[in-house]
């Protein structure tokens, strides 16, 4: 179970850019936690503007950062770019402080009105949020997307599907990865989600591609082997 406050504190240190002030967990002047009223409009605007605030440069985590993340329960690479990490930090902080029902509706709103970078960061944050299973419908929606960066944000380097998806959408995720040429070793927890039905679907994929004379994803044998 990932502690949102601890994680929020750590992510704030990773993020190299000014964070919106209502997410700082402590008021250093008064040495107490400042209670701020939740301002949804400001959050949505800050979330939208985060790429400009944090920049879009690739994120390189130090060994120290990685071991600290591991210690906090985050054993995968949470973000690819600085703005992605910044947005994830905003979401984790908000989840630790805002009323849960309100947080859930704001997250959904930010997703719906978000551009691709915003949506990616939300999908990568899901596993870090409390009661993460409540976001399954949103994650399933991302899996249906034709926007490849969205599919990859949930399917690749993200423990969320293997932890929370029922079998049918998990199987479809793997099949879609095969169709898109995504390396299957990027699907965290795939080994724990092998089922006879998935093997059946993979075998049918192979025969379909063979019949069409098309190329076959080399990783399909990971699914088909006994």
């Amino acid at each position, binding site marked *: 179970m990932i502690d949102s406050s601890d994680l929020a504190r750590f992510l704030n240190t990773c993020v190299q850019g000014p964070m919106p002030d209502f997410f700082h967990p402590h008021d250093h002047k008064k040495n107490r936690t400042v209670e701020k009223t939740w301002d949804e409009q400001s959050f*949505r*605007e800050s979330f*939208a*503007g985060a*790429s*400009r605030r944090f920049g879009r440069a*690739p994120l390189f985590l130090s060994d120290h950062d990685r071991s600290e993340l591991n210690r906090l329960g985050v054993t995968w690479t949470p973000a*690819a*770019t600085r703005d992605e990490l910044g947005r994830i930090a905003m979401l984790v902080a908000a989840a630790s402080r805002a009323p849960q029902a309100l947080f859930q509706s704001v997250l959904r709103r930010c997703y*719906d*009105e*978000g*551009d*691709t*970078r915003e*949506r990616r960061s939300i999908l990568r944050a899901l596993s870090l949020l409390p009661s993460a299973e409540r976001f399954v419908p949103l994650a399933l929606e991302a899996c249906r997307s*034709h*926007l*490849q*960066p969205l599919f*990859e944000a949930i399917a*690749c*380097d993200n423990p969320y599907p293997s932890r929370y998806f029922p079998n049918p959408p998990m199987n479809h995720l793997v099949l879609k990865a095969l*169709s*898109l*040429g*995504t*390396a299957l070793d990027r699907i965290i927890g795939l080994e724990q989600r092998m089922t006879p039905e998935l093997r059946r679907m993979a075998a049918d994929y192979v025969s379909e591609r063979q019949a069409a004379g*098309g*190329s076959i994803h*080399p990783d399909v044998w990971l699914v088909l082997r006994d």
Partner: protein
Amino acid sequence: MRYFDPHIHMTSRTTDDYAAMRQAGIEAVIEPSFWLGQPRTHVGTFEDYFRSLIGWEPFRAGQFGIRHFCTLSLNPKEANNPVVAQGVFDLLSIYLQKDAVVAVGEIGYDEMTPDEDRYFQLQLELAQRFDLPVLVHTPHRDKKRGTERSLALIRATGFPEARALIDHNTEETLPLVLDTGCWAGHSIYPNTKMDELRMVALVRRFGTERMIINSAADWGVSDPLKVPKTAEAMRAGGIREEDIESIVWRNPVTFFSQSGKLDLCNVEPAIDHTRLWEGNSVLRGQTTAPIGGTPTAEGTSRT
């Protein structure tokens, strides 16, 4: 030479167009939000359209190596629809703050009704508030009067003229626009708007300063390659390469960079580095059309 088409409605164009555009050297486009050909009846329809302009369409363009930005607004025609007008206007505050939105537009007049006037002014004020330039549509009927009124309104509201691009100019309206500090756009569009040869004549007469061209290609009979074709006509007409480059690249970049959001440093498609190595996108399980006509090996690469 690289080209920028700063007014093209890609939502209504096919991937054949994207491929041809890439082949012709178009590297960046701006898609203004506009009317779809028949009236929308729900505010939500606009919202989903805005979302597609910041999400799906830039991705689609990216598959062909083209950077895609947009402008958003309540367009002049639909400002007349009381069912949607205020609701759409109210959406703009959040969507104008998205990274891909580089101006408020298309705004302006269609028939110069009081409702159009009101929302034209409100959106000029909104653009001021969000520090964005504006893209102004000039009417296709009573155009000279519409242009005069547009310029007068910009002046009356105190909107900075250097941040206003008055579009769809003709021989009659261009001098009016250039007499102000506004920029002048020209839509090279078959039959109903400007054509290449007339454009060459205008450039010869008025020079390149604050001059911009576009195709305004949409769901009608129109040509998404009009910018490179007009450049070719300018070449044939003896206009210098650097002047052509001003019109088809530097000018639109300069104007829309006033938004602070025209990120052209990476003109390769907006693919983030974590997915580059998986090769080109395969949208439905089949390989995409090769970019720029270069054949690719069958299947995806996994280097």
